[in-house]
């Protein structure tokens, strides 16, 4: 056995160094562990500054001793390679380990150990932990807003039905696969709209909106059969004409009657709220912003200069202003721009505003995809005799959209995260409901629990979405 040089750990005294190093490292970890979990300070006899620093110093020396390359122990090599490459990394690793050990008991005690779950009044919450009773009592308000308790089955039923209908794509057989795009782009949104119109609202809420939706769906379905040369004129004129025709020739009262199902009460949009409103708004904005964005992306790359300028102006305008001012505009300025008898529900105004806003972002993302396609694709499609619309629908857009899946997913994520802003127009989704519940005199002082609860919900939704988009990206990745 050769002389040990502690300043230069090497392989010759591997075992000695290893034992000493691990011992020192373990001591430091155990000290911090006891300190944070059991409030025991083993080294309290030392001066306070030293006893504070001691675990780091001991751990550092320990890690220094075991930093031996090619030791022959797989585990040791792995540790050295991953957390112990040099002095700086060793200190950082130690700090992170200590922070985790220090934070765990505090977090655990707040979330679980000292938290109160039982009961349904404030009195049970006297401990230092979280008061989950608060969430339990207010759960329905956080989920459904001011929607009457007795009617909440309507929201549940609609969401379950829509989730089932939405999963049709997974079960479709080969024979029906080619109709899936049509189903998801036109039919499914329409069904969703009908559910929300008849079921969740059950009354004259979405009037002008419903005319618009019906006009859009009818004109898109007919639009498939319009020859390519006239498509542009068709899409500029027919939806607006249809909308006006529907608005002035179908009678108001009849539609009110149509909107009312037997035995369902009308629930005003002002009473909607909570997480369900987040879902409704995200869903509609998602559906609307996509085609609008696509249209403006195509417009920005159009060969007609005037159309191009208009698209650029639209996109840059919406991208340049914050959403909150857009919502302000929809709340205070937009009604001034409409005829006096023309009433649009504030939820609908909100949906329109957010859709236009996000459409500009979607347009830029899609434009990126269009630009990334090689010219050859356009030329090949043209040389096959395809017109503008056929070329884009069958050749260009499928490839471009595939390329921009991550970008689009990011935009949709941003959309979901932006929904709390609707507090500007007085609609209260989950964050707004939290702020309302927080000011309730019976339940003062539980802001933290509410925000943590909402944060967890949003985190799960957004994280799931980003993981799903990653899967989609992998699924549609084609060799190029």
């Amino acid at each position, binding site marked *: 056995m050769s002389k040990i040089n502690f300043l230069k750990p090497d392989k010759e005294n591997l075992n000695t160094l290893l034992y000493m190093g691990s011992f020192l490292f373990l001591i430091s970890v155990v000290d911090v562990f006891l300190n944070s979990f059991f409030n025991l300070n083993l080294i309290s006899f030392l001066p306070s500054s030293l006893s504070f620093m001691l675990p780091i110093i001991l751990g550092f020396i320990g890690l220094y001793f075991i930093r031996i390359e090619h030791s022959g122990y797989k585990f040791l090599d792995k540790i050295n390679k991953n957390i112990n490459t040099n002095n700086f990394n060793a200190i950082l690793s130690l700090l992170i380990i200590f922070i985790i050990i220090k934070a765990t008991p505090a977090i655990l005690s707040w979330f679980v150990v000292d938290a109160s779950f039982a009961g349904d009044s404030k009195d049970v919450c006297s401990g230092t932990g979280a008061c989950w009773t608060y969430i339990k009592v207010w759960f329905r308000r956080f989920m459904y807003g001011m929607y009457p308790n007795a009617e909440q089955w309507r929201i549940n039923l609609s969401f379950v039905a829509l989730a089932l209908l939405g999963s049709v794509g997974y079960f479709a057989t080969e024979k029906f696969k080619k109709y899936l795009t049509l189903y998801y782009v036109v039919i499914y949104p329409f069904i969703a709209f009908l559910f929300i119109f008849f079921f969740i609202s059950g009354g004259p809420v979405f009037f002008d909106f419903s005319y618009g939706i019906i006009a859009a769906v009818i004109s898109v379905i007919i639009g498939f059969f319009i020859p390519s040369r006239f498509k542009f004129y068709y899409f500029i004129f027919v939806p607006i004409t249809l909308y006006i025709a529907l608005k002035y020739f179908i009678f108001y009262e009849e539609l009110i009657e149509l909107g009312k199902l037997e035995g369902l009460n009308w629930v005003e949009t002002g009473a909607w709220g909570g997480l369900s409103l987040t879902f409704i708004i995200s869903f509609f904005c998602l559906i609307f912003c996509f085609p609008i964005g696509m249209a403006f992306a195509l417009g920005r790359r159009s060969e007609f200069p005037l159309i191009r300028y208009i698209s650029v102006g639209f996109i840059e305008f919406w991208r340049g202003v914050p959403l909150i001012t857009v919502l302000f505009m929809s709340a205070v300025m937009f009604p001034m721009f409409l005829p006096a008898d023309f009433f649009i529900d504030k939820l609908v105004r909100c949906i329109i505003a957010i859709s236009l806003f996000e459409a500009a972002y979607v347009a830029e993302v899609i434009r990126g995809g269009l630009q990334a396609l090689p010219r050859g694709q356009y030329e090949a499609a043209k040389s096959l005799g395809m017109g503008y619309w056929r070329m884009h629908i069958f050749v260009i857009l499928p490839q471009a959209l595939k390329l921009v899946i991550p970008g689009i997913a990011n935009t949709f994520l941003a959309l979901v995260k932006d929904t709390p802003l609707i507090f500007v127009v007085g609609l209260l989704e989950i964050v707004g409901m939290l702020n309302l519940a927080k000011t309730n005199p019976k339940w003062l002082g539980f802001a933290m629990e509410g*925000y943590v609860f909402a944060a967890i919900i949003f985190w799960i939704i957004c994280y799931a979405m980003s993981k799903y988009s990653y899967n989609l990206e992998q699924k549609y990745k084609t060799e190029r």
Partner: protein
Amino acid sequence: MNLKLQKIIPQLITVLVVILVFGFFTYNAQINMENRGIDFGYGFLSQESSFDVQFSLIEYDGSHSYFRAYLVGLLNTILVSVIGIIFATILGVIVGVARLSPNYLINQFAAFYVEFFRNIPLLLQIFFWYFAALRALPLPQDAEAIFGVFFLTIKGLYVPAFIWQNFNIFFYSIIAAIISIVIIRFYAQKVQEIQGKQLPVFWISIGLIFTLPLLSFLIGGVDLSFEIPKLKQLATTSFIYEGGLSLPPELIALTLSLSLYTATFIAECVRAGIQGVGKGQKEAAASIGLNPNQVLKLVVMPQALRIIIPPTTNQYLNLTKNSSLAAAIAYPDLVLVFAGTALMQTGKAIEIVSITMLTYLSLSISISILMNWYNKKIAIKEK
């Protein structure tokens, strides 16, 4: 002829539709305003505003004009954005580099940070900091001093104020230092081109930037003293700090959440940028005899920056626009002061909302023009 017509007609029709829609809107707006007895005009900007703003960078009270109120809001917005951008950049770069660290614990920690803060709505984070976290701070009389001079209380952060004497001379000395550094760099480059010698520019610069201001203290008669905030009793239970600078809790909550949130996006940009530089580049640079510092400075960073800067600019723009969420916690920014209070008082919806939107539009357009210029400057010159 036919082909020309085919090109003109769609454009004409689109323009016609756009004009019709706008005409419809303005026509309605006119009628609505006539009905409600509102007249259109920007004359109100010079009227007395008669409302107070609790935090402002320039002198302002109710006797000033609406335009002054607008400036107050704008400056507060810019203040939050600038502080937020600085902190977000620092944090974002650190986290972005940490995500590429070979240390497993560090990169997992960084990844956790990014995934955690990115997936929670910004508004929720602002509310969390303002209504939950900062409300847990001690009252002014119970606050403990940090380093003896900072006081973090429920009413905000109190920091010592600088009291300068002959500040101009100090300022000029810094400018002189910067100018001489530029000259020395230029000279050093020339020396290197002609003689192949490398001057220690970095050390000279550091020396200059410290010695010149120091000289101004010793010779120039510059003097700096601090005014440390002191606790003062207003009533039996009401205390306040006097002297020093006070940063309101709204500002702290806002900058904290904006920078924590935006830093996650900047971190991703930085990571993508550094990963985007090919391994071969580093190896090639090392093989021609550059040391690791030079590899980073001369080879990796210039290429990484080219990838990093455009998306990071976007994030800066987003931060500036997101600062408008200040209105939710009553930080007096442009949206709250102007589109909120001023709009309520005057009822001039169209004018005020349009001014607010135009302001944000010009802010973001000017930032993006600046960054486009920079981007063009560092872009690869393709032959």
